[in-house]
């Protein structure tokens, strides 16, 4: 019995234009999301995140490949597992002339959930007081909250959230992130699709990164970002410190009056400098930022031109 909540093998999605041209949105994607925790699903816009999610939820038909949710093949067994899955796909989509409450009541009615569940969901996302207003009068943030409330109608074991903080104000973003983190800690598996690395860093324990519909990397977030392998070193005499660190066989790069040092562990740096009588002013782990990280991973990729021949065969593990 697999402990994977989401599993795809060789998943591929092609779209055909009117002229018969094919565009590959997802190319032979092997995705594995273990049970529990918050799993980031990262990729730049147009990388195939939403298409993958839509296929998992039965909204789009894969060109080929297999998908499993809770070990059950989907879309064949989707009706049997959908009750355990809550999802927000892209922007919230509700009937604009109905109130937020009416929209939730209709969805709850489809699964036989009592009205108390609707009340609870509204309270959880802090929509109380506005739930009887028409949906079309909601701000984007309120729409996002309503969409998240809809996912809570089922009490899901798996929550799939596609860019859930889009349009939220800073306090709303923080609340949603806290909610996601709490859900992950409570045993719900959360797949958080985002192109915001900082969001994933703050919330997720593991992540999968895709580009052009292909798997680029997958693993623990700290591993993916290379945390602990490079440090920013500030000392009174950078030149002397650079000599000492070089003699200790560490890779040193001067950078605007500071040093960037590659090391397995920070003790290697402090010990070498301490033994030379050089005392640190500052030692900071360096992490990749969003832009440089994606540029590095997606270097040479051209959006919309994925395909079997171009698949580089990354396996679930560390970044190449």
């Amino acid at each position: 019995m697999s402990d994977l909540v989401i599993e795809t093998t060789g998943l591929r999605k092609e779209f055909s234009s009117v002229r018969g041209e094919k565009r590959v949105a997802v190319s032979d994607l092997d995705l594995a999301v273990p049970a529990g925790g918050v799993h980031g699903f990262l990729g730049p816009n147009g990388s195939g995140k939403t298409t993958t999610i839509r296929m998992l939820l039965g909204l789009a038909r894969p060109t080929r490949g297999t998908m499993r949710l809770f070990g059950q093949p989907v879309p064949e067994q989707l009706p049997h597992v959908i009750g355990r899955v809550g999802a927000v796909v892209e922007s919230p989509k509700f009937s604009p002339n109905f109130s937020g409450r009416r929209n939730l009541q209709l969805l709850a009615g489809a699964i036989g959930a009592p009205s108390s569940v609707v009340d609870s969901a509204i309270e959880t996302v802090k929509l109380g007081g506005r739930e009887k207003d028409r949906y079309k009068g909601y701000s984007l943030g309120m729409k996002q909250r309503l969409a998240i409330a809809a996912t809570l109608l089922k009490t899901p074991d798996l929550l799939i959230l596609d860019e859930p903080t889009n349009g939220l104000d800073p306090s709303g973003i923080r609340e949603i992130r806290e909610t996601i983190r709490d859900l992950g800690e409570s045993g719900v598996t959360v797949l958080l699709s985002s192109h915001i690395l900082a969001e994933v860093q703050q919330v997720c324990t593991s992540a999968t990164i895709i580009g052009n519909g292909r798997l680029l990397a997958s693993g623990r977030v700290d591993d993916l970002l290379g945390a602990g392998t490079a440090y920013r070193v500030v000392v009174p005499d950078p030149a002397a410190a650079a000599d000492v660190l070089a003699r200790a066989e560490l890779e040193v790069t001067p950078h605007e009056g500071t040093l960037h040092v590659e090391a397995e562990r920070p003790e290697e740096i402090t010990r070498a400098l301490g033994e030379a009588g050089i005392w640190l002013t500052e030692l900071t782990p360096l992490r990749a930022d969003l832009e440089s990280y994606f540029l590095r991973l997606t270097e040479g990729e051209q959006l919309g031109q994925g395909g079997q021949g171009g698949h580089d065969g990354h396996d679930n593990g560390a970044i190449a």
Partner: protein
Amino acid sequence: MNRLLRVELTRVLCRRAVLVLLAAAIVVPAVIGVARVLNTREPSAEEVARAEQLIAEERDTRWAKRELASCQKDPAEYFGGDVPEGDLEQACLEWIGLSLDNYLYVDRLELAEERDEGAGFAVVVVLAILMMLAGTTFAGHDWASGSVSNQLLFEPRRPLVWTAKGVVVTAVAGVFSAAVLTVYWLLLYAVVTARDAGLGDGVLLDCLQSGWRGAGVAAAAALAGYSLTMLFRSTVAALGVLLAASVAGGIVLAVLGVDPVWNPGLNIGAVIRDGMPYWTEGPCPNLDDGVTYGGDVCEVEKTLSLGRAVLFLGTMLVVFIAASLASFRRRDVP
């Protein structure tokens, strides 16, 4: 399924556009009915007096005097062999047009006529159009708002979702139209009875049955509108296709020389009226003497039966449903 039916019923009855169309489905027949009742009311004493005055004025003209005198002098010239007995002067006045019937036009309310050619037929057509609009706007709204995908996240069995929506749209349109048409005919019947105008045997039942068949047409129109909207995923596209088919369809059939029996409008009429006469080209009839008159091909009158019309329209509807359902099952949902 019951849960989905309840949800869809709530959805359809909470949609403002649908409610407006249902309100129109009450108001328009009511206006038509009231207009018919008013237009067929008995003339007032003032109207009769005014008409009699006009007749008297006309009778004083030289022309009328000459014609009346001539008629009375030689009635056979005017009436041929059927010279009326009794009041010859009155008969001559009527012959030359100086009668109340000519000066006081009275349109009588007759249920049989209303059912076949009058406002009753128009009411059914109006209801069918309104219900078709309700079917298209109900489905089109879901696609326009994108809420179809949200619904499928709660019930991914697409045929079930399609069926629940279709059943509700059809049932609401059918029941509502049947209620409106039943009330319409009962009220007209009450008016005719109150006027003591006289009714043929079984006319009311015929009218009610025609109304219920009309309700079936309205329900089918709603289902067709819904099916096409689910196929094209757009109210505008579905209505565009239906409008083009209704406007250009008859013309194209006529240009191609296709038998009118394939005209959807004629078939709808045949369902409502329990058979519909139509003219088409056919072999000229032979008379008793065995001689064919008028050449080889003549315009002959035929009747399109209710059964054939139901079969034709039903087949069209099944094709719409099959295409719509297959499309909804297979295509990606945005």
